[in-house]
């Protein structure tokens, strides 16, 4: 007897849903009436529909990622029930090994996080066997656990995807839009998903970067609260093959983080370096062979001889007047009074 393959259900979630539905039916008309009045109906459990769109995403990282990246990966796995995890990959291996890993896990999309210098986080997104792949630089990461993200959603509920119209304007952005849609959208009737749609992912373009946000839909009138995570993607290159192949697109606005840091450092030290250069120039000038100016060529330019005066010899002695004393009327009295 062949052991039957146990179908992996959505853990307790699907069971709970099924139970709930059964309970509702068992409780009879009263419950249904009351809920019908409020217009809230419990939908049928997910296993009732047939899961056709077989989309699986492999999310994993290289070694040397920091805690924030790890949390981000976990958050993405929470948000996307159609994702699979894998162990850390050694960075010494070449990138096309990832394709083999994807095949083993039977995934057709992949999100691979790579950290360099323990500072910069790069993300690869690819369509596994033949399709295109993109390399991004990830910045401004905020995870689910941050206390400012106050929203919450069902684990595994399907998201709405909202794109900026700028995605339709450029061809490479259109390609990215398609890739995002296929990667992040949870397939309908996926066994781990929930039948509600209660959160929305937004992809917007600002400052030549892609901004990702995740909001919870509270009311039907469109009031939203942020759930998280949130990050910013900076496109580096788009390749035709998965983790390799000819380059289809290169981002002209991209500046490598090393160059960016270098520029900042140079800007801060530019003034100092200028001063140093000036000092050196002065030193050099001091020890230069200087011309000794013995004769000034321009000395006679303004030479205007003075008027000749006749020589005058004084013969008579000038009369000496008696030395006049300064009038000090009260000084004598003061001196007398003092003594």
């Amino acid at each position, binding site marked *: 007897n062949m052991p039957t393959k146990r179908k992996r259900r959505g853990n307790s*979630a699907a069971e*709970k849903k099924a139970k709930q539905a059964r309970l509702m039916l068992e409780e009879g008309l009263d419950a249904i009436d009351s809920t019908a009045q*409020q217009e809230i*109906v*419990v939908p049928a459990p997910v296993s009732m529909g047939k899961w056709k*769109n077989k989309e699986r995403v492999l999310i994993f990282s290289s070694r040397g990622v920091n805690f924030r990246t790890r949390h981000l990966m976990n958050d993405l796995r929470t*948000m996307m029930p159609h994702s699979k995890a894998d162990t850390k990959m050694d960075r010494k291996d070449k990138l096309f090994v990832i394709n083999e890993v994807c095949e083993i896990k039977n995934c057709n999309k992949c999100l691979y996080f790579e950290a360099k210098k323990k500072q910069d986080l790069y993300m690869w997104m690819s*369509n596994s066997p033949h*399709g295109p792949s993109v390399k991004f630089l990830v910045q401004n990461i905020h995870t*689910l656990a941050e*206390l400012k*993200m*106050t929203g*919450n*959603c*069902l*684990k595994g509920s399907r*998201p*709405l*995807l*909202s*794109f*900026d*119209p*700028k*995605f*339709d304007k450029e*061809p*490479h952005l*259109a*390609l990215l*839009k*398609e890739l995002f*849609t*296929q990667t992040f*959208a949870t*397939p*309908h009737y996926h066994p781990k998903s929930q039948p*509600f*749609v*209660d959160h*929305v992912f*937004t992809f*917007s373009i*600002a*400052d030549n*970067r892609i901004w990702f*946000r995740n909001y919870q*839909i509270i009311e*039907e009138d*469109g009031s*939203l609260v942020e*759930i998280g995570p949130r990050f910013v993607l900076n496109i580096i290159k788009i390749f*035709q093959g998965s983790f390799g192949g*000819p*380059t*289809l*697109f*290169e981002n*002209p606005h991209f500046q490598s983080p090393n160059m960016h840091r270098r520029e900042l450092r140079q800007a801060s030290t530019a003034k100092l370096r200028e001063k140093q250069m000036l000092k050196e120039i002065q030193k050099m000038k001091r020890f230069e062979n200087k011309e000794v100016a013995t004769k000034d060529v321009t000395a006679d330019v303004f030479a205007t001889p003075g008027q000749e005066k006749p020589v005058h010899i004084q013969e008579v002695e000038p009369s000496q007047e008696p030395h006049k004393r300064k009038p000090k009327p009260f000084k004598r009295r003061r001196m007398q009074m003092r003594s």
Partner: protein
Amino acid sequence: MTLETSIEDMEDLEEDMEDLEEDEQLGTDSEEEDSELSDSELQDAFAKGLLKPGMNVLTTKSKTCVNNVEGIRQCLAELSKSLPWVERLDLTNLPAEDILARAEGKLPAADGTVNADDDFQREMFFYRQAQASVLEALPRLKKLNIFTKRPGDYFAEMAKSDQQMTKIRKKLISKQAILEKSEKAKKLREQRKFGKKVQVEVIQKRQKEKKDMMNAVKKYQKGMTDKLDFLDGDQKGPAAAGQKTKGDAAKRGPNAKRKSKDDRFGFGGKKSGKKWNTKESHNDVSTFRSKTAHGKGGKGGKKGGKGAQNKRPGKSVRKKMKSHK
């Protein structure tokens, strides 16, 4: 000599060879750095007219980036799967209208660009984009029988655990509490200041009353007044009169005498040279007050009214009064 010849040659293109040679001799430092542009090449370029006279600055050629549009389109065609909308649930839209911004009169850029550095505006842009998507998507979802509203008793696993949510709630509550506390503290401080002011005023009022009372008593004792009004207490009369004069005094400002003293001796007042017997000062009649000059018109009338109440009796009369006692 070199200076003069080089200036002339700048205008004359034909004598470029000599010009360049002289320039090279004078400024060899910069030339050595760019080995790509050798002297002969520069001469040739100048001869052809590619280089113009004047300062020529080196600029790096802008890096050409790959943008294989055809390849991208092909890739996109291969990648795209024709899925119904219900599988993808994707929408593309501009942000919803911001009523507040329109009311204030500052609309964002029409083409949808947002300044990434202005945090608040940027987040509002994303928020409104999400809102517009939600408003568009909800009716479509309803048609497809997909629910967005969760019933109150539907318990399922949430993305954030209950522990996390309680932490968040606690933080929000604590923030609010801190705000309220600071508000209360501010109000209390204000009240205390105000209370102190009021207290000081009351004390001053009491002292003034006491002083007035003592003065009134003294006057009566000395025989200046024979009315015992002050014993009746602070009824309407002195209060009203006091208020009136108090208000008046406040309006009038400091005394005229005080003012003139300030002008003469205070800071910023002219000390000397105020009185000059010049033609202008002689002809200046602005300080002439006819009433004062002609005796305030009270020569006849005032004597009867004033003299009876406030006039202090002379020495002999006082002596007589004293001895009588």
